[in-house]
């Protein structure tokens, strides 16, 4: 599978994403500077986490105007897989590729910890290796992850099963206490109507290999591979 990881000024999870796809899963990865365009032949594009443009004005607001974003929009419109993680999710919202906005966490704190999310829809190109209702432990690290949208849009994305992940307890219960940031309806990740663009606040790339003590996030990347009929290649790390 050919993956493109976009690098904005201020991205800081770009190499983690490269590492997971290339070194852990054995796929081909290209790093794409935000001033360049997307090379031909990509199967999926990753908008990684970080603090693009220092989060100036609003998170993701300036990155959305980076030259590469025109190509990302075209890529998404043509059905290419796009996953935005954390800041990448914020950029997808600002770019209008996903509906809604991010507000500051209700606690006003930058929250960096493991959380539990429930897979609300396992019939997607990002979650087909999960089971419906499965609880994943994946870390979050953000100050602006308080998802908000208007009631009509919320009704629409719920009816279309576009809400993919919701914050929950370890047992899978959706409660206010399990909501780390005040997000509407405990939403942690959503997909577009066409099912090829996913945004999620938790960082699956930080929980995708045994060495890190948690492999739950790996399911997201394996699902993307499965969507292309691929499986993980023996990692160069095997036997280390």
């Amino acid at each position, binding site marked *: 599978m050919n993956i493109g990881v976009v690098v904005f000024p201020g991205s800081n999870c770009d190499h983690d994403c490269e590492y997971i796809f290339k070194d852990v899963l054995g796929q081909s990865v290209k790093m794409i500077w935000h001033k360049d365009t997307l090379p031909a032949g990509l199967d999926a594009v990753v908008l990684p986490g970080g603090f693009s443009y220092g989060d100036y004005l*609003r998170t993701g607001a300036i990155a959305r105007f980076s030259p590469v974003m025109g190509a990302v929009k075209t890529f998404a419109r043509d059905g290419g897989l796009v996953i935005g993680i954390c800041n990448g999710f914020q950029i997808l919202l600002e770019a209008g590729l996903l509906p*809604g906005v991010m*507000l500051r966490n209700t606690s006003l704190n930058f929250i960096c910890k493991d959380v539990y999310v429930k897979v609300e829809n396992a019939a997607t190109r990002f979650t087909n290796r999960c089971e419906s209702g499965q609880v994943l432990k994946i870390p979050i690290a953000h100050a602006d992850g308080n998802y*908000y949208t*208007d009631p009509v849009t919320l009704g629409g994305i719920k009816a279309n099963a576009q809400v993919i992940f919701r914050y929950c307890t370890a047992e899978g219960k959706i409660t206010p206490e399990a909501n780390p940031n005040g997000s509407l309806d405990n939403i942690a990740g959503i997909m577009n109507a066409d099912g090829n663009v996913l945004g999620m606040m938790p960082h699956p790339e930080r929980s995708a290999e045994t060495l890190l003590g948690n492999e739950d996030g790996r399911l997201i990347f394996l699902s993307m591979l499965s969507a292309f009929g691929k499986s993980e290649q023996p990692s160069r790390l095997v036997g280390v």
Partner: protein
Amino acid sequence: MKAKIHVTLKQGILDPQGKAIEHALDSLGFKNAANVRVGKYMEVDVNETDSAKADAQVKQMCEKLLANTVIEEYRYELQ
């Protein structure tokens, strides 16, 4: 011309920063302070003498970048 632009959260959108400031004012003894809303103030020099044209440009700047109109509203004055 100079545009002086205010971007604020729409009514009804939770403003955690405003709430925190409100609590701080309360603990300072300002018991009558309520509904604190935090916004942004920006100044932009627009190289344009025609005020109608400048107005149209500033409006576009607000719509396209300076405000996210899902949650924010904006107002400005041109001098």
